[in-house]
């Protein structure tokens, strides 16, 4: 809602108007092959980038739903797609979990360093992020008086913990819990992937009392879960940025204009917007392209 966003939106709009007149996209520019991971938020960001580029005259080929990072990253490194939205924290963690920090821009720079060797550029990040969220049911929060993660240590023995299988060696999981004074591993623990459907169902169905979800995950709104405040700032910044292959950028007539378009779209995506759009797609079952287009229009990021 800020002035800064208006400026960014305005400058992109101006860019788009010039695009209509001569084109950010040259006639010889190659087709942009955009990929996404197989979940709503990645598809949504990929669609937003796709629509912005199409609006500027680029031809886009969508390859959405390419599994998760574990399958998509090799495909991207191989050059099967040119562009993909990525979370800068987890994306960095995929290559080196020890480098992750709580600052989005730092994570972006470190990810850019790791990816530079692989011929990949990291564009600008969204101000909004989808980070790890420690979540409990409303009833548990009321009963045990939980509002922040610091409240967990006193009641740790009463809770059944839903933790990701890689928690043991993950500093963001085991390390964070220990920072909050929780004895690791907890006595009662289920191994469930963070941010996934089963862990949310397990929490809602009373099979666990604590779950790691993603902060913009629609299940939180849907089931009325309580997100515990990360009062010690243990969780990494998970802002989103497009990753683009250098061999593709080299073929563009105007790579700077190309980046400006995408950075402009990223600049408007706050955490609140990300959460709201996620509910539109996952809970209200609306089409991703429709939600993405509506958001871009509301942001003034699409010409005519």
């Amino acid at each position, binding site marked *: 809602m800020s002035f800064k966003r208006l400026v960014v939106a305005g400058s992109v709009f101006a860019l788009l108007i010039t695009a209509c007149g001569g084109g950010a996209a040259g006639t010889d520019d190659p087709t942009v092959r955009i990929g996404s991971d197989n979940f709503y938020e990645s598809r949504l960001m990929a669609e937003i980038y796709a629509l912005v580029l199409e609006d500027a005259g680029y031809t886009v080929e969508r390859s959405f739903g390419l599994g998760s990072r574990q399958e998509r990253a090799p495909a991207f490194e191989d050059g099967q797609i040119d562009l993909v939205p990525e979370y800068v924290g987890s994306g960095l963690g995929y290559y080196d979990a020890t480098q992750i920090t709580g600052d989005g821009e730092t994570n972006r720079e470190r990810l850019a360093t790791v990816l530079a060797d692989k011929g990949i550029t990291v564009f600008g990040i969204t101000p909004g992020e989808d980070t790890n969220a420690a979540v409990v049911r409303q009833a548990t929060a009321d009963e045990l008086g939980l509002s922040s993660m610091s409240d967990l240590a006193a009641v740790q023995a009463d809770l059944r913990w*839903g933790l990701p299988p890689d928690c043991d060696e993950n500093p963001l999981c085991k390390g964070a819990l220990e920072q909050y004074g929780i004895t690791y591993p907890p006595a009662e623990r289920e191994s469930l992937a963070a941010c996934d459907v*089963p862990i949310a169902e397990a929490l*809602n*169905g009373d099979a666990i009392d604590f779950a790691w979800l993603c902060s913009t995950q629609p299940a939180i709104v849907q089931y009325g879960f309580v997100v515990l405040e990360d009062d010690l700032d243990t969780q990494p910044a998970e802002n989103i940025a497009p990753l683009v292959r250098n061999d593709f950028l080299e073929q563009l007539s105007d790579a700077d204009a190309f980046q400006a378009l995408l950075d402009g779209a990223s600049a408007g995506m706050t955490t609140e917007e990300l959460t709201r759009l996620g509910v539109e797609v996952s809970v209200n079952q609306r089409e991703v392209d429709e939600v993405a287009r509506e958001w871009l229009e509301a942001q003034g990021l699409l010409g005519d």
Partner: protein
Amino acid sequence: MSEVIAWFSDPSNWQGSTGVPVRLWEHVWISAVSVAVATVIALPVGLYTGHTGRFAGVAINLANIGRAIPSYAVLVMVLPISLSLAPVLGYSPNLGLSFIPTFTAMVLLAIPPILVNAHAGLQAVDRDLIEAARAMGLKEREILGQVELPIAMTVIVGGFRTAVLNVIATATIGAIVSFGGLGRFIIDGRLRGVAGIPELISGAILVTVLAVTVDLLLGGLQRRITPDGVKIAEGQSFELPKPALSPAS
């Protein structure tokens, strides 16, 4: 590859509640229970439809629905139901989280081959033989037990083998709902990114070795329990050996 060898030679991967022996046991256990229950359901139905020829279309089509729904979909569909039934039926929510969805998906996976093979095995028995047995005064139950079953045994056990193989390979998905088993190495390894690839490959190797070993054992069993008169020697076509039926013998 050297990383996979390193994974297998790391003693910590063979110890405790997350080591290979425990995971192997969990995997064998869920597979055995699922196939056993599927057999109890599918075999009588298959034998009935195969012997009588009645309700065959209904039974086989119903069983094939199990084949058409991916096990992962079954898992995810059963999960909220089994969780919400826990307080109603009074079982532990943990059962509703991991065991019941995995078990249900595996039973639905094992039913079709057992049922269809039992049916097809009986249907393939020469009608003349059954008529002859009937003419000799054998009761229906005796025809099934003494004529049809021995001849169809190879095909029936073949269906059982297929079911076991499918279940061992697919029970890996139980790890998604925090069930143990060898799938843990695959699912957990995958979640660990690049660092988890050796674990993932090792898990896949373990599942393959288990599946092939069990299949070979069942293959031996299949040959052993097939009556001599029906045994198909290598290189021969599937025909009843003449001497066994010759009036002179």
